[in-house]
Protein backbone atom coordinates (compact mmCIF):
# COMPACT_ATOMS: atom_id res chain seq x y z
CA UNK A 1 0.00 0.00 0.00
CA UNK A 2 1.13 3.47 -0.79
CA UNK A 3 1.48 5.87 2.07
CA UNK A 4 0.46 9.48 1.91
CA UNK A 5 4.07 10.58 1.59
CA UNK A 6 4.59 8.21 -1.31
CA UNK A 7 1.56 9.52 -3.04
CA UNK A 8 2.73 13.06 -2.56
CA UNK A 9 6.12 12.18 -4.02
CA UNK A 10 4.47 10.51 -6.97
CA UNK A 11 2.29 13.52 -7.56
CA UNK A 12 5.28 15.82 -7.44
CA UNK A 13 7.23 13.74 -9.91
CA UNK A 14 4.29 13.57 -12.29
CA UNK A 15 3.59 17.28 -11.96
CA UNK A 16 7.20 18.07 -12.73
CA UNK A 17 6.96 15.93 -15.83
CA UNK A 18 4.02 18.01 -17.02
CA UNK A 19 5.14 21.50 -16.03
CA UNK A 20 5.24 22.71 -19.64
CA UNK A 21 1.70 21.53 -20.21
CA UNK A 22 0.50 23.30 -17.08
CA UNK A 23 2.14 26.46 -18.32
CA UNK A 24 0.46 26.13 -21.71
CA UNK A 25 -2.86 25.43 -20.01
CA UNK A 26 -2.87 28.84 -18.34
CA UNK A 27 -4.34 30.71 -21.33
CA UNK A 28 -6.83 27.87 -21.88
CA UNK A 29 -8.02 28.00 -18.29
CA UNK A 30 -8.11 31.78 -18.41
CA UNK A 31 -10.29 31.67 -21.50
CA UNK A 32 -12.75 29.35 -19.75
CA UNK A 33 -12.76 31.53 -16.67
CA UNK A 34 -13.39 34.76 -18.55
CA UNK A 35 -15.85 33.60 -21.20
CA UNK A 36 -17.60 30.66 -19.54
CA UNK A 37 -17.33 30.97 -15.78
CA UNK A 38 -17.50 34.72 -15.37
CA UNK A 39 -20.83 34.87 -17.24
CA UNK A 40 -22.08 32.20 -14.82
CA UNK A 41 -21.32 34.59 -12.01
CA UNK A 42 -22.98 37.27 -14.15
CA UNK A 43 -26.35 35.57 -13.71
CA UNK A 44 -26.52 37.37 -10.36
CA UNK A 45 -27.75 40.28 -12.49
CA UNK A 46 -31.07 38.44 -12.73
CA UNK A 47 -31.63 39.17 -9.02
CA UNK A 48 -30.49 42.79 -9.14
CA UNK A 49 -31.43 46.16 -10.55
CA UNK A 50 -28.38 46.45 -12.69
CA UNK A 51 -26.59 49.76 -13.08
CA UNK A 52 -23.51 49.37 -15.29
CA UNK A 53 -21.70 52.08 -13.32
CA UNK A 54 -22.15 50.28 -10.02
CA UNK A 55 -21.10 46.92 -11.41
CA UNK A 56 -22.76 43.60 -10.63
CA UNK A 57 -21.86 43.56 -6.93
CA UNK A 58 -22.63 47.22 -6.33
CA UNK A 59 -26.05 47.22 -7.94
CA UNK A 60 -28.96 46.99 -5.50
CA UNK A 61 -30.99 43.80 -5.15
CA UNK A 62 -34.22 43.73 -7.10
CA UNK A 63 -37.57 44.05 -5.33
CA UNK A 64 -39.56 41.13 -3.93
CA UNK A 65 -36.48 39.56 -2.39
CA UNK A 66 -34.59 39.76 -5.65
CA UNK A 67 -37.19 37.83 -7.57
CA UNK A 68 -38.86 40.84 -9.19
CA UNK A 69 -37.65 40.04 -12.70
CA UNK A 70 -38.66 36.40 -12.49
CA UNK A 71 -42.09 37.42 -11.30
CA UNK A 72 -42.41 39.83 -14.18
CA UNK A 73 -41.28 37.11 -16.54
CA UNK A 74 -43.65 34.40 -15.37
CA UNK A 75 -46.55 36.83 -15.50
CA UNK A 76 -46.11 37.89 -19.11
CA UNK A 77 -47.97 36.10 -21.84
CA UNK A 78 -44.96 36.41 -24.11
CA UNK A 79 -42.98 34.14 -21.83
CA UNK A 80 -45.63 31.43 -21.65
CA UNK A 81 -46.06 31.69 -25.38
CA UNK A 82 -42.30 31.33 -25.94
CA UNK A 83 -42.12 28.36 -23.60
CA UNK A 84 -45.06 26.69 -25.32
CA UNK A 85 -43.65 27.31 -28.81
CA UNK A 86 -40.24 26.00 -27.75
CA UNK A 87 -41.71 22.74 -26.52
CA UNK A 88 -44.00 22.38 -29.53
CA UNK A 89 -41.15 22.92 -32.02
CA UNK A 90 -38.87 20.52 -30.14
CA UNK A 91 -41.56 17.85 -30.02
CA UNK A 92 -42.34 18.32 -33.70
CA UNK A 93 -38.66 17.83 -34.48
CA UNK A 94 -38.57 14.77 -32.27
CA UNK A 95 -41.54 13.19 -34.02
CA UNK A 96 -41.01 14.31 -37.62
CA UNK A 97 -37.29 15.02 -38.08
CA UNK A 98 -35.77 12.45 -35.76
CA UNK A 99 -36.73 9.25 -37.66
CA UNK A 100 -35.56 10.62 -41.02
CA UNK A 101 -31.81 9.93 -40.72
CA UNK A 102 -32.52 6.43 -39.36
CA UNK A 103 -34.72 5.60 -42.31
CA UNK A 104 -32.24 7.13 -44.75
CA UNK A 105 -29.30 5.20 -43.35
CA UNK A 106 -31.28 1.95 -43.52
CA UNK A 107 -32.06 2.63 -47.16
CA UNK A 108 -28.48 3.69 -47.88
CA UNK A 109 -27.24 0.45 -46.44
CA UNK A 110 -29.21 -1.42 -49.09
CA UNK A 111 -27.55 0.37 -52.00
CA UNK A 112 -25.22 -2.21 -53.46
CA UNK A 113 -23.43 -0.02 -55.95
CA UNK A 114 -20.69 1.61 -53.88
CA UNK A 115 -20.02 4.54 -56.17
CA UNK A 116 -23.69 5.42 -56.32
CA UNK A 117 -23.87 5.23 -52.55
CA UNK A 118 -20.93 7.62 -52.16
CA UNK A 119 -22.47 10.05 -54.63
CA UNK A 120 -25.78 10.04 -52.79
CA UNK A 121 -23.99 10.57 -49.49
CA UNK A 122 -22.04 13.51 -50.88
CA UNK A 123 -25.26 15.11 -52.06
CA UNK A 124 -27.23 14.62 -48.87
CA UNK A 125 -24.46 15.74 -46.50
CA UNK A 126 -23.94 19.05 -48.25
CA UNK A 127 -26.90 21.07 -46.86
CA UNK A 128 -25.60 20.58 -43.32
CA UNK A 129 -22.74 22.95 -44.07
CA UNK A 130 -24.97 25.75 -45.27
CA UNK A 131 -25.84 28.38 -42.70
CA UNK A 132 -29.34 29.27 -41.65
CA UNK A 133 -28.91 32.75 -43.06
CA UNK A 134 -28.42 31.25 -46.49
CA UNK A 135 -31.20 28.73 -45.97
CA UNK A 136 -33.62 31.46 -45.01
CA UNK A 137 -32.60 33.31 -48.18
CA UNK A 138 -33.31 30.20 -50.22
CA UNK A 139 -36.61 29.64 -48.44
CA UNK A 140 -37.64 33.23 -49.16
CA UNK A 141 -36.86 32.74 -52.83
CA UNK A 142 -38.60 29.40 -53.12
CA UNK A 143 -41.73 30.55 -51.33
CA UNK A 144 -41.72 34.07 -52.78
CA UNK A 145 -45.23 35.31 -53.51
CA UNK A 146 -44.09 36.67 -56.86
CA UNK A 147 -42.07 34.31 -59.02
CA UNK A 148 -41.23 31.75 -56.33
CA UNK A 149 -41.39 28.19 -57.57
CA UNK A 150 -44.05 27.08 -55.09
CA UNK A 151 -46.42 29.88 -55.93
CA UNK A 152 -45.72 29.42 -59.64
CA UNK A 153 -46.71 25.81 -59.22
CA UNK A 154 -49.88 26.82 -57.39
CA UNK A 155 -50.80 29.15 -60.25
CA UNK A 156 -50.19 26.38 -62.77
CA UNK A 157 -52.51 24.15 -60.78
CA UNK A 158 -55.12 26.87 -60.72
CA UNK A 159 -54.71 27.82 -57.06
CA UNK A 160 -54.20 31.25 -55.54
CA UNK A 161 -50.87 32.63 -54.44
CA UNK A 162 -50.06 32.16 -50.77
CA UNK A 163 -47.78 34.33 -48.69
CA UNK A 164 -46.21 31.43 -46.81
CA UNK A 165 -43.77 33.34 -44.68
CA UNK A 166 -46.22 35.72 -43.09
CA UNK A 167 -48.81 33.11 -42.17
CA UNK A 168 -48.64 31.51 -38.76
CA UNK A 169 -50.37 28.41 -40.07
CA UNK A 170 -47.48 27.60 -42.39
CA UNK A 171 -44.55 28.42 -40.13
CA UNK A 172 -44.02 24.99 -38.61
CA UNK A 173 -44.32 23.35 -42.01
CA UNK A 174 -41.56 25.55 -43.42
CA UNK A 175 -39.38 25.25 -40.34
CA UNK A 176 -39.58 21.46 -40.20
CA UNK A 177 -39.12 21.10 -43.94
CA UNK A 178 -35.96 23.21 -43.95
CA UNK A 179 -34.69 21.42 -40.86
CA UNK A 180 -35.05 18.07 -42.62
CA UNK A 181 -33.35 19.49 -45.69
CA UNK A 182 -30.38 20.72 -43.67
CA UNK A 183 -29.93 17.95 -41.12
CA UNK A 184 -31.47 14.66 -42.26
CA UNK A 185 -28.65 13.67 -44.60
CA UNK A 186 -25.86 14.53 -42.21
CA UNK A 187 -27.72 12.78 -39.41
CA UNK A 188 -27.18 9.47 -41.21
CA UNK A 189 -23.42 9.55 -40.52
CA UNK A 190 -23.75 8.32 -36.99
CA UNK A 191 -26.16 5.52 -37.92
CA UNK A 192 -24.09 4.50 -40.93
CA UNK A 193 -21.11 4.21 -38.59
CA UNK A 194 -23.24 1.98 -36.37
CA UNK A 195 -24.32 -0.19 -39.28
CA UNK A 196 -20.74 -0.72 -40.41
CA UNK A 197 -20.01 -2.19 -36.98
CA UNK A 198 -22.61 -4.95 -37.24
CA UNK A 199 -21.19 -8.48 -37.34
CA UNK A 200 -21.64 -9.86 -40.92
CA UNK A 201 -22.24 -13.32 -39.45
CA UNK A 202 -25.67 -12.17 -38.34
CA UNK A 203 -26.63 -11.46 -41.93
CA UNK A 204 -25.21 -14.74 -43.17
CA UNK A 205 -27.10 -16.68 -40.55
CA UNK A 206 -30.28 -14.86 -41.50
CA UNK A 207 -29.70 -15.61 -45.17
CA UNK A 208 -29.37 -19.29 -44.44
CA UNK A 209 -32.72 -19.01 -42.70
CA UNK A 210 -34.04 -17.53 -45.92
CA UNK A 211 -34.48 -13.93 -44.79
CA UNK A 212 -34.89 -11.34 -47.54
CA UNK A 213 -33.45 -7.83 -47.46
CA UNK A 214 -36.42 -6.26 -45.75
CA UNK A 215 -36.46 -9.00 -43.12
CA UNK A 216 -32.74 -8.53 -42.47
CA UNK A 217 -33.20 -4.78 -42.20
CA UNK A 218 -36.01 -5.21 -39.72
CA UNK A 219 -34.59 -8.07 -37.63
CA UNK A 220 -30.86 -7.33 -37.68
CA UNK A 221 -29.92 -3.82 -38.78
CA UNK A 222 -32.57 -1.91 -36.87
CA UNK A 223 -32.19 -3.78 -33.56
CA UNK A 224 -28.41 -3.42 -33.79
CA UNK A 225 -28.85 0.33 -34.10
CA UNK A 226 -31.14 0.53 -31.08
CA UNK A 227 -28.49 1.70 -28.56
CA UNK A 228 -27.49 4.57 -30.86
CA UNK A 229 -31.09 5.44 -31.59
CA UNK A 230 -31.95 5.52 -27.90
CA UNK A 231 -28.89 7.62 -27.16
CA UNK A 232 -29.68 10.16 -29.84
CA UNK A 233 -33.31 10.26 -28.78
CA UNK A 234 -32.43 10.81 -25.15
CA UNK A 235 -30.02 13.57 -26.05
CA UNK A 236 -32.66 15.33 -28.07
CA UNK A 237 -35.20 15.04 -25.28
CA UNK A 238 -32.58 16.54 -22.97
CA UNK A 239 -32.28 19.44 -25.37
CA UNK A 240 -35.97 20.12 -25.51
CA UNK A 241 -35.57 23.76 -24.49
CA UNK A 242 -33.21 24.35 -27.41
CA UNK A 243 -35.61 24.60 -30.30
CA UNK A 244 -32.93 25.98 -32.60
CA UNK A 245 -32.35 29.71 -32.37
CA UNK A 246 -30.65 30.10 -35.75
CA UNK A 247 -33.43 28.51 -37.73
CA UNK A 248 -36.26 30.35 -36.04
CA UNK A 249 -34.52 33.68 -35.89
CA UNK A 250 -33.80 33.67 -39.60
CA UNK A 251 -37.17 32.39 -40.69
CA UNK A 252 -39.55 34.26 -38.43
CA UNK A 253 -40.96 37.76 -38.56
CA UNK A 254 -43.32 39.77 -36.38
CA UNK A 255 -46.42 38.42 -38.10
CA UNK A 256 -45.71 34.84 -36.98
CA UNK A 257 -44.45 35.51 -33.43
CA UNK A 258 -47.51 33.81 -31.99
CA UNK A 259 -46.27 30.42 -33.17
CA UNK A 260 -42.60 31.07 -33.84
CA UNK A 261 -41.24 33.01 -30.88
CA UNK A 262 -39.13 30.63 -28.75
CA UNK A 263 -37.31 31.16 -25.45
CA UNK A 264 -34.02 32.00 -27.19
CA UNK A 265 -35.47 34.51 -29.61
CA UNK A 266 -37.50 36.05 -26.80
CA UNK A 267 -34.40 36.32 -24.60
CA UNK A 268 -32.60 38.01 -27.45
CA UNK A 269 -35.40 40.51 -27.99
CA UNK A 270 -35.89 41.52 -24.37
CA UNK A 271 -32.27 41.19 -23.24
CA UNK A 272 -30.35 42.61 -26.17
CA UNK A 273 -32.66 44.33 -28.64
CA UNK A 274 -34.79 46.04 -25.99
CA UNK A 275 -32.00 46.23 -23.43
CA UNK A 276 -33.81 44.82 -20.37
CA UNK A 277 -30.60 43.26 -19.14
CA UNK A 278 -32.04 41.80 -15.92
CA UNK A 279 -35.10 40.24 -17.55
CA UNK A 280 -33.00 38.78 -20.32
CA UNK A 281 -30.60 37.32 -17.77
CA UNK A 282 -33.46 35.93 -15.69
CA UNK A 283 -34.91 34.20 -18.73
CA UNK A 284 -31.49 32.86 -19.65
CA UNK A 285 -30.97 31.52 -16.15
CA UNK A 286 -34.39 29.88 -16.07
CA UNK A 287 -33.54 28.10 -19.31
CA UNK A 288 -30.00 27.18 -18.28
CA UNK A 289 -31.08 25.57 -14.99
CA UNK A 290 -33.82 23.42 -16.53
CA UNK A 291 -31.52 22.55 -19.41
CA UNK A 292 -28.80 21.52 -16.99
CA UNK A 293 -31.09 19.15 -15.12
CA UNK A 294 -32.46 17.67 -18.35
CA UNK A 295 -28.97 17.12 -19.74
CA UNK A 296 -27.79 15.45 -16.54
CA UNK A 297 -30.78 13.14 -16.57
CA UNK A 298 -30.39 12.26 -20.23
CA UNK A 299 -26.68 11.65 -19.75
CA UNK A 300 -27.53 9.23 -16.94
CA UNK A 301 -30.04 7.45 -19.14
CA UNK A 302 -27.47 7.14 -21.92
CA UNK A 303 -25.01 5.71 -19.43
CA UNK A 304 -27.57 3.13 -18.36
CA UNK A 305 -28.33 2.14 -21.94
CA UNK A 306 -24.83 2.03 -23.39
CA UNK A 307 -22.81 1.46 -20.24
CA UNK A 308 -20.77 4.53 -21.03
CA UNK A 309 -21.15 8.25 -20.42
CA UNK A 310 -21.20 10.51 -23.45
CA UNK A 311 -17.83 12.06 -22.93
CA UNK A 312 -15.67 9.60 -21.00
Amino acid sequence: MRTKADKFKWLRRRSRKYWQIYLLLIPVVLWFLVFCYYPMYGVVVAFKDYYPKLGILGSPWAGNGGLEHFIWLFKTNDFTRALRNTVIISLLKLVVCFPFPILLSLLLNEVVHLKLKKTIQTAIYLPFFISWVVISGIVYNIFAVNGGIINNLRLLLGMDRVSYLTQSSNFYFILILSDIWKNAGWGTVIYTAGISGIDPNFYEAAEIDGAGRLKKMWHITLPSLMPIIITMFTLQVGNILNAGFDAVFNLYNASVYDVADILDTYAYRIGIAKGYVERGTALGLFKAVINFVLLLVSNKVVKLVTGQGLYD
Partner: protein
Amino acid sequence: MIEITGRKQKITVFGIVNTALLVLFGIICLFPLVYEALIAVASKVDYYQSNFITIPRHFTFENFRFIFKQSNIGWSFALSLFTTVIGTVYNMTLTIIGAYALSREDMPFKKVFFFFVLFTMFFGGGLVPFYLVVKNLGLLSYDFTSVFSIIIPFGISGFNMIILRNFFRAVPEEILEACEIDGASQLRVLVQFIVPLSKAGLATVALFYAVERWNDWYWPMLFITNADYAPLALALRNILSSNTALDGVGGVDSTVTFAEGQSAATILVAILPIVCAYPFVQKYFVRGVMLGGVKS
Protein backbone atom coordinates in the same frame (compact mmCIF):
# COMPACT_ATOMS: atom_id res chain seq x y z
CA MET B 1 -20.70 -6.77 -46.21
CA ILE B 2 -22.23 -8.49 -49.19
CA GLU B 3 -20.62 -5.87 -51.43
CA ILE B 4 -17.19 -6.63 -50.05
CA THR B 5 -17.36 -10.37 -50.53
CA GLY B 6 -18.25 -9.56 -54.13
CA ARG B 7 -21.32 -11.74 -54.36
CA LYS B 8 -23.70 -10.49 -57.01
CA GLN B 9 -26.97 -9.02 -55.90
CA LYS B 10 -30.01 -9.59 -58.03
CA ILE B 11 -31.76 -6.50 -59.28
CA THR B 12 -35.01 -6.48 -57.38
CA VAL B 13 -38.04 -4.24 -57.22
CA PHE B 14 -36.97 -3.36 -53.71
CA GLY B 15 -33.53 -2.33 -54.94
CA ILE B 16 -34.96 -0.11 -57.64
CA VAL B 17 -37.48 1.60 -55.39
CA ASN B 18 -34.86 2.04 -52.71
CA THR B 19 -32.35 3.62 -55.07
CA ALA B 20 -35.00 5.80 -56.65
CA LEU B 21 -36.05 7.14 -53.24
CA LEU B 22 -32.49 7.97 -52.28
CA VAL B 23 -31.67 9.59 -55.59
CA LEU B 24 -34.82 11.65 -55.24
CA PHE B 25 -33.74 12.82 -51.81
CA GLY B 26 -30.28 13.60 -53.16
CA ILE B 27 -31.81 15.75 -55.87
CA ILE B 28 -33.98 17.52 -53.30
CA CYS B 29 -30.83 18.32 -51.35
CA LEU B 30 -29.08 19.84 -54.35
CA PHE B 31 -32.04 21.41 -56.12
CA PRO B 32 -32.38 24.59 -54.00
CA LEU B 33 -28.77 25.49 -54.76
CA VAL B 34 -29.28 24.97 -58.49
CA TYR B 35 -32.48 26.98 -58.24
CA GLU B 36 -30.60 29.88 -56.67
CA ALA B 37 -27.93 29.68 -59.36
CA LEU B 38 -30.59 29.90 -62.06
CA ILE B 39 -32.15 32.98 -60.46
CA ALA B 40 -28.77 34.61 -59.89
CA VAL B 41 -27.86 34.58 -63.58
CA ALA B 42 -31.35 35.41 -64.81
CA SER B 43 -32.55 38.85 -65.74
CA LYS B 44 -35.62 40.56 -64.32
CA VAL B 45 -37.74 39.58 -67.34
CA ASP B 46 -36.77 35.92 -67.05
CA TYR B 47 -37.73 35.87 -63.43
CA TYR B 48 -41.11 37.57 -63.63
CA GLN B 49 -42.15 35.78 -66.79
CA SER B 50 -41.29 32.36 -65.50
CA ASN B 51 -44.28 30.21 -64.78
CA PHE B 52 -42.44 27.42 -63.02
CA ILE B 53 -38.66 27.42 -62.62
CA THR B 54 -36.80 30.52 -63.67
CA ILE B 55 -34.90 29.81 -66.88
CA PRO B 56 -32.15 32.37 -67.53
CA ARG B 57 -32.96 33.02 -71.18
CA HIS B 58 -31.25 36.42 -70.99
CA PHE B 59 -28.17 35.19 -69.19
CA THR B 60 -26.55 38.02 -67.23
CA PHE B 61 -24.08 38.75 -64.45
CA GLU B 62 -25.82 42.01 -63.64
CA ASN B 63 -27.02 40.71 -60.24
CA PHE B 64 -23.46 39.87 -59.27
CA ARG B 65 -22.20 43.21 -60.53
CA PHE B 66 -24.86 44.91 -58.50
CA ILE B 67 -23.99 43.26 -55.20
CA PHE B 68 -20.28 43.82 -55.67
CA LYS B 69 -20.84 47.49 -56.50
CA GLN B 70 -23.55 48.24 -54.01
CA SER B 71 -22.78 46.35 -50.88
CA ASN B 72 -19.07 45.86 -50.45
CA ILE B 73 -19.47 42.12 -50.73
CA GLY B 74 -15.87 41.78 -51.84
CA TRP B 75 -14.64 43.47 -48.67
CA SER B 76 -16.96 41.36 -46.51
CA PHE B 77 -15.66 38.27 -48.23
CA ALA B 78 -12.08 39.24 -47.40
CA LEU B 79 -13.08 40.03 -43.84
CA SER B 80 -14.71 36.62 -43.46
CA LEU B 81 -11.58 34.96 -44.78
CA PHE B 82 -9.56 36.91 -42.23
CA THR B 83 -11.72 36.03 -39.23
CA THR B 84 -12.02 32.42 -40.37
CA VAL B 85 -8.29 31.90 -40.79
CA ILE B 86 -7.09 33.85 -37.74
CA GLY B 87 -9.96 32.55 -35.64
CA THR B 88 -9.36 28.93 -36.58
CA VAL B 89 -5.65 29.18 -35.79
CA TYR B 90 -6.57 30.67 -32.42
CA ASN B 91 -9.16 27.92 -31.83
CA MET B 92 -6.73 25.19 -32.74
CA THR B 93 -3.93 26.48 -30.52
CA LEU B 94 -6.14 26.50 -27.44
CA THR B 95 -7.92 23.27 -28.33
CA ILE B 96 -4.73 21.31 -29.00
CA ILE B 97 -3.33 22.23 -25.60
CA GLY B 98 -6.53 21.34 -23.80
CA ALA B 99 -7.04 18.13 -25.74
CA TYR B 100 -3.51 16.99 -25.02
CA ALA B 101 -3.97 17.60 -21.31
CA LEU B 102 -7.21 15.59 -21.42
CA SER B 103 -5.54 12.74 -23.28
CA ARG B 104 -2.77 12.21 -20.69
CA GLU B 105 -4.05 9.70 -18.20
CA ASP B 106 -1.20 10.17 -15.73
CA MET B 107 -1.28 13.95 -15.56
CA PRO B 108 -2.19 15.15 -12.07
CA PHE B 109 -5.34 17.29 -11.93
CA LYS B 110 -6.44 15.93 -15.31
CA LYS B 111 -9.80 14.96 -13.82
CA VAL B 112 -10.25 18.42 -12.34
CA PHE B 113 -9.57 19.98 -15.71
CA PHE B 114 -11.95 17.54 -17.38
CA PHE B 115 -14.83 18.56 -15.14
CA PHE B 116 -13.83 22.19 -15.50
CA VAL B 117 -14.39 21.80 -19.25
CA LEU B 118 -17.36 19.45 -19.05
CA PHE B 119 -19.33 21.75 -16.77
CA THR B 120 -19.25 24.52 -19.37
CA MET B 121 -20.85 22.13 -21.83
CA PHE B 122 -23.82 21.56 -19.54
CA PHE B 123 -24.32 24.96 -18.02
CA GLY B 124 -23.79 28.51 -19.15
CA GLY B 125 -24.55 32.00 -17.94
CA GLY B 126 -26.75 32.71 -20.93
CA LEU B 127 -26.69 35.33 -23.61
CA VAL B 128 -26.89 38.57 -21.65
CA PRO B 129 -24.11 37.98 -19.07
CA PHE B 130 -21.84 36.80 -21.88
CA TYR B 131 -22.65 39.91 -23.85
CA LEU B 132 -21.84 42.05 -20.81
CA VAL B 133 -18.45 40.36 -20.39
CA VAL B 134 -17.49 41.06 -23.99
CA LYS B 135 -18.75 44.61 -23.67
CA ASN B 136 -16.90 45.27 -20.43
CA LEU B 137 -13.67 43.98 -21.95
CA GLY B 138 -13.91 46.86 -24.39
CA LEU B 139 -14.13 44.63 -27.45
CA LEU B 140 -17.17 46.35 -28.88
CA SER B 141 -15.46 49.27 -30.54
CA TYR B 142 -16.56 51.03 -33.69
CA ASP B 143 -13.31 50.54 -35.59
CA PHE B 144 -11.51 47.55 -37.07
CA THR B 145 -10.59 46.10 -33.68
CA SER B 146 -14.25 45.14 -33.23
CA VAL B 147 -13.46 42.27 -35.59
CA PHE B 148 -11.63 40.67 -32.69
CA SER B 149 -14.87 40.64 -30.69
CA ILE B 150 -15.97 37.75 -32.87
CA ILE B 151 -12.64 35.97 -32.54
CA ILE B 152 -11.36 36.19 -28.97
CA PRO B 153 -14.53 35.24 -27.02
CA PHE B 154 -14.96 32.11 -29.14
CA GLY B 155 -11.80 30.23 -28.33
CA ILE B 156 -12.83 26.70 -27.51
CA SER B 157 -15.72 24.39 -28.12
CA GLY B 158 -15.67 21.69 -25.46
CA PHE B 159 -17.16 19.29 -27.97
CA ASN B 160 -14.30 19.81 -30.44
CA MET B 161 -11.79 19.49 -27.65
CA ILE B 162 -13.15 16.08 -26.75
CA ILE B 163 -13.15 14.94 -30.39
CA LEU B 164 -9.50 15.95 -30.64
CA ARG B 165 -8.70 14.20 -27.37
CA ASN B 166 -10.13 11.01 -28.86
CA PHE B 167 -7.80 11.38 -31.86
CA PHE B 168 -4.83 12.02 -29.57
CA ARG B 169 -5.68 8.93 -27.56
CA ALA B 170 -5.42 6.85 -30.72
CA VAL B 171 -1.67 7.55 -30.94
CA PRO B 172 0.01 4.30 -29.82
CA GLU B 173 1.14 4.40 -26.21
CA GLU B 174 4.50 2.73 -27.10
CA ILE B 175 5.58 5.75 -29.15
CA LEU B 176 5.00 8.07 -26.22
CA GLU B 177 6.76 5.75 -23.81
CA ALA B 178 9.76 5.56 -26.12
CA CYS B 179 9.88 9.36 -26.25
CA GLU B 180 9.74 9.61 -22.50
CA ILE B 181 12.53 7.08 -22.06
CA ASP B 182 14.61 9.20 -24.44
CA GLY B 183 13.97 12.09 -22.10
CA ALA B 184 11.78 14.14 -24.44
CA SER B 185 9.88 16.91 -22.66
CA GLN B 186 6.09 16.93 -22.81
CA LEU B 187 6.18 19.93 -25.11
CA ARG B 188 8.35 17.99 -27.54
CA VAL B 189 6.11 14.96 -27.33
CA LEU B 190 3.14 17.14 -28.19
CA VAL B 191 4.74 19.15 -30.99
CA GLN B 192 6.93 16.50 -32.58
CA PHE B 193 4.90 13.36 -32.14
CA ILE B 194 1.27 13.84 -31.17
CA VAL B 195 0.52 16.68 -33.59
CA PRO B 196 2.17 15.13 -36.69
CA LEU B 197 0.58 11.77 -35.91
CA SER B 198 -2.92 13.23 -35.59
CA LYS B 199 -3.13 15.19 -38.83
CA ALA B 200 -6.49 13.75 -39.76
CA GLY B 201 -7.91 14.65 -36.37
CA LEU B 202 -6.51 18.16 -36.52
CA ALA B 203 -7.97 18.63 -39.99
CA THR B 204 -11.36 17.45 -38.77
CA VAL B 205 -11.51 19.79 -35.81
CA ALA B 206 -10.05 22.73 -37.73
CA LEU B 207 -12.71 22.27 -40.38
CA PHE B 208 -15.49 22.19 -37.79
CA TYR B 209 -14.22 25.47 -36.43
CA ALA B 210 -13.70 27.00 -39.85
CA VAL B 211 -17.20 26.21 -41.10
CA GLU B 212 -18.70 27.59 -37.93
CA ARG B 213 -16.71 30.79 -38.28
CA TRP B 214 -17.45 31.18 -41.95
CA ASN B 215 -21.18 30.75 -41.36
CA ASP B 216 -21.36 32.87 -38.21
CA TRP B 217 -23.72 35.80 -38.48
CA TYR B 218 -25.21 35.93 -35.00
CA TRP B 219 -22.27 37.15 -32.94
CA PRO B 220 -21.19 39.59 -35.65
CA MET B 221 -24.76 40.92 -35.57
CA LEU B 222 -24.47 41.48 -31.81
CA PHE B 223 -20.88 42.64 -31.57
CA ILE B 224 -20.01 44.46 -34.78
CA THR B 225 -21.98 47.68 -34.75
CA ASN B 226 -20.18 49.26 -37.68
CA ALA B 227 -21.67 47.84 -40.88
CA ASP B 228 -18.35 48.43 -42.66
CA TYR B 229 -16.87 45.55 -40.70
CA ALA B 230 -19.67 43.06 -41.26
CA PRO B 231 -18.36 39.66 -42.35
CA LEU B 232 -20.01 37.96 -45.29
CA ALA B 233 -22.69 35.99 -43.47
CA LEU B 234 -23.90 39.12 -41.68
CA ALA B 235 -23.70 41.22 -44.85
CA LEU B 236 -25.80 38.56 -46.55
CA ARG B 237 -28.35 38.72 -43.77
CA ASN B 238 -28.51 42.48 -44.05
CA ILE B 239 -29.05 42.26 -47.79
CA LEU B 240 -31.73 39.60 -47.40
CA SER B 241 -33.60 41.45 -44.70
CA SER B 242 -33.54 44.80 -46.48
CA ASN B 243 -34.44 43.07 -49.73
CA THR B 244 -35.13 46.20 -51.72
CA ALA B 245 -34.10 46.44 -55.33
CA LEU B 246 -32.15 49.65 -55.68
CA ASP B 247 -32.17 51.56 -58.90
CA GLY B 248 -29.65 53.76 -60.56
CA VAL B 249 -26.53 52.55 -58.84
CA GLY B 250 -23.65 53.62 -61.05
CA GLY B 251 -23.32 51.47 -64.11
CA VAL B 252 -25.80 48.78 -63.08
CA ASP B 253 -28.80 48.23 -65.28
CA SER B 254 -31.86 48.28 -63.04
CA THR B 255 -34.06 46.88 -65.77
CA VAL B 256 -32.00 43.69 -65.61
CA THR B 257 -31.18 43.23 -61.94
CA PHE B 258 -33.89 42.48 -59.35
CA ALA B 259 -34.18 41.89 -55.59
CA GLU B 260 -34.53 38.10 -55.69
CA GLY B 261 -31.67 37.85 -58.16
CA GLN B 262 -29.48 39.95 -55.92
CA SER B 263 -30.12 37.81 -52.88
CA ALA B 264 -29.55 34.68 -54.96
CA ALA B 265 -26.24 36.09 -56.19
CA THR B 266 -25.20 36.93 -52.63
CA ILE B 267 -26.15 33.44 -51.51
CA LEU B 268 -23.98 31.93 -54.22
CA VAL B 269 -21.01 34.06 -53.21
CA ALA B 270 -21.52 33.06 -49.56
CA ILE B 271 -21.67 29.33 -50.17
CA LEU B 272 -18.99 29.28 -52.87
CA PRO B 273 -16.02 28.46 -50.60
CA ILE B 274 -18.00 25.78 -48.80
CA VAL B 275 -19.26 24.11 -51.95
CA CYS B 276 -15.78 24.22 -53.51
CA ALA B 277 -13.93 22.82 -50.52
CA TYR B 278 -16.65 20.39 -49.48
CA PRO B 279 -15.94 17.44 -51.82
CA PHE B 280 -12.32 17.33 -50.67
CA VAL B 281 -12.87 17.67 -46.95
CA GLN B 282 -16.11 15.75 -46.50
CA LYS B 283 -14.33 12.62 -45.28
CA TYR B 284 -12.75 14.51 -42.38
CA PHE B 285 -16.12 15.64 -41.11
CA VAL B 286 -17.50 12.13 -41.31
CA ARG B 287 -14.56 10.76 -39.37
CA GLY B 288 -14.94 13.48 -36.77
CA VAL B 289 -18.55 12.59 -36.09
CA MET B 290 -17.69 8.92 -35.76
CA LEU B 291 -14.97 9.58 -33.23
CA GLY B 292 -16.56 12.39 -31.31
CA GLY B 293 -20.09 11.19 -31.25
CA VAL B 294 -21.66 8.26 -29.63
CA LYS B 295 -19.57 5.14 -29.28
CA SER B 296 -21.53 2.01 -29.80
